[in-house]
């Protein structure tokens, strides 16, 4: 615990839920933990209501474990399966409506800059593919155009899963889903390329099949967003419930897609962002 605000007032320990007490005693705030520390501390995510084998659950767990500064990070979410998880996440997190997440994050980050000029407050958007690539795309892109200092993480399960498995802009062409009864007629949206063109200083596409890669991407994205500009990460998070595969096949499915060349891990770093990362590395060596 790096901040006294997380301490429980004397006399109230017993009435706090056990998982909260555990969080206070052994949480990740200010510890500099990463994914390799999972299992050794009380995680930010508590038991969640998502389906067995949910790719989103894996991505959220790893992304939260990768945050460089959880004690001063506020998450902005959106409607979807992920919004069922966040009430059980031990960070301030906002879910207001479907699709407005990057607009909310823009206002939030600016207000936090005004109120805490001498302190870093990271604002990270974590939302699904429908929220990011469809209903909220204009606000996502406009936040990039404005060069807002926020990180946007898309949990890409290639469908509207929470409403019962409908086609989204991120579904693959030909996929037969609700509202696409004869198969999707147009290709999966290419958000990483869009993000780069729209001004993101750092863009990565990866998945929970590569925890280390995911961790590095999240850390870089959050650090770069602080100083350089907006960053975007797309996490392929397959949905066993709506795509009808077995819960234990989530990670094998990602790896199979990689093998077939259908999904590829990508990374783009702008020159300015690279110089910034180099300067951090220099400072660390000294």
């Amino acid at each position, binding site marked *: 615990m790096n901040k006294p605000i997380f301490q429980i007032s004397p006399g109230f320990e017993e009435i706090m839920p056990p998982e909260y007490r555990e969080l206070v005693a052994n949480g990740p705030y200010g510890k500099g933990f990463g994914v390799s520390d999972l299992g050794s501390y009380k995680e930010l995510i508590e038991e969640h209501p998502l389906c067995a084998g949910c790719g989103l659950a894996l991505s959220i767990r790893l992304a939260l474990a990768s945050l460089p500064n959880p*004690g001063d990070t506020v998450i902005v979410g959106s409607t979807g399966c992920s919004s069922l998880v966040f009430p059980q996440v031990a960070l301030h997190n*906002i879910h207001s409506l479907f699709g*407005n997440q990057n607009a909310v994050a823009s*206002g939030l980050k600016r207000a936090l800059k005004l109120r805490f000029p001498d302190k870093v407050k990271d604002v990270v958007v974590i939302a699904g593919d429908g929220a990011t690539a469809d209903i909220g795309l204009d606000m996502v892109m406009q936040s990039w155009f404005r060069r807002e200092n926020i990180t946007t993480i898309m949990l890409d399960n290639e469908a509207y899963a929470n409403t019962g498995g409908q086609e989204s802009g991120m579904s693959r062409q030909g996929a037969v889903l609700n509202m696409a009864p004869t198969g999707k007629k147009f290709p999966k949206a290419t958000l990483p390329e869009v993000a780069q063109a729209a001004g993101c200083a750092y863009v990565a596409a990866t998945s929970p099949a590569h925890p280390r890669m995911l961790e590095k991407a999240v850390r870089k994205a959050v650090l770069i967003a602080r100083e350089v500009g907006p960053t975007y990460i797309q996490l392929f998070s397959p949905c066993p419930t709506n795509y009808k595969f077995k819960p234990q096949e989530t990670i094998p499915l990602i790896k199979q897609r990689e093998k077939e060349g259908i999904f590829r891990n990508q990374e783009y770093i702008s020159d300015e962002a690279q110089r910034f990362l180099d300067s951090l590395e220099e400072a660390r060596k000294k």
Partner: protein
Amino acid sequence: MGKQQITDPHHLLFEAPRVQSFITGSEAVAEAVKRANVDMAIAYPITPQSESMHLVGELFEQGYIRDFYRAENEFAVMAAIHGASLGGGRVFTATSGPGTLRAMEMFPVWAGARQPIVCAFMCRGVSLPPSIQPENIEMGMLLDTGMLMLHAEDGQDFHDMVLAGYAVAEQPEVHLPVGVFVDGFFATHTKDRILLPPADLKLPPYDPRTAPVPTFDMETPPMRITRDPLLNKSNFISGAANASWHQEVLAAAERSRRHLRTYLGGLLEVESPKAKTLIVASGTAVSQSREALRLLQAEGIDAGLIKIKSIRPFPEEELAEATDHADLIVVPEFNAGGWLGREVKAALDRNRRVVSGPRLFGGMSMPPGLIVETIKGAMATKNRSAGGA
């Protein structure tokens, strides 16, 4: 930017010496924002709101506001304002007609999130055929969003209600958004003599720690104890939690009444209270009704006027008391739907006394003579039916 001293809202609104200025309603709202110690404003252009937000942008350039930007659409404006307020900032924005409707999904979110956002609405037509002309149908569409709604008659009200809006909205027991509505063009684009408090005074900064809900800044402990989110669960506990939250929003609006009385001098105002014929109006229809009163009184017809300043909460009890002795209540308004007429009818017993009209819309002005005709017509009908009985 001139140096500003912090003063309390009561002093700023009621005690500080005022100087007369001949300005538009748009300028008046910017003068209020200048004195409101606003952290952040966000704007999207729409007629007839734009001029006021240009001026608010200039306040940012001059240093009176700490952050400002032009956003991508009104839904995004209201979402970003929501985010800035969740982060603990005092915020301001404004919109009009179609912008209000585009942003509609956000207003219940502001109220549900218990945010003391002040938003000005320069009302205009919203329908097809397209209209940028004055009318206030959008107010009828916002009656149940949970926000407090004040209706300004003129530039003076507009200025004072924006400042009073912050004072009321930020009361810990209220903490709700306040919409300050004005009939576009009539009040925004016409110059009037407006009394302004000194420009070297401003409200105290907003302290988010006085809010009844936590600020999203990771400076208070994160909660993580909602094992059953209020959202999407069909069980009794989730349903009851959700319902009680809504009830508390409504209760907070009820608790705003005493603060509105303090900062607006009442939720309504009455002129010639003893008259048996009363006009009940809000916004610029009040000004037109004042003229109608003059015309009626010149003809020896005794009539009075009730100006409703607060639409939400609605002054049901005050209105019932003020109209108890009246035989005829006429409600002129600037929209086709007649929402104020419905509100008045719903608040009163013997509501066949209420004539909902005249209604002007599509950009037409309201000739005082039309209000006079409506009153005379209603009196004649009443006399005929009395004679026939």
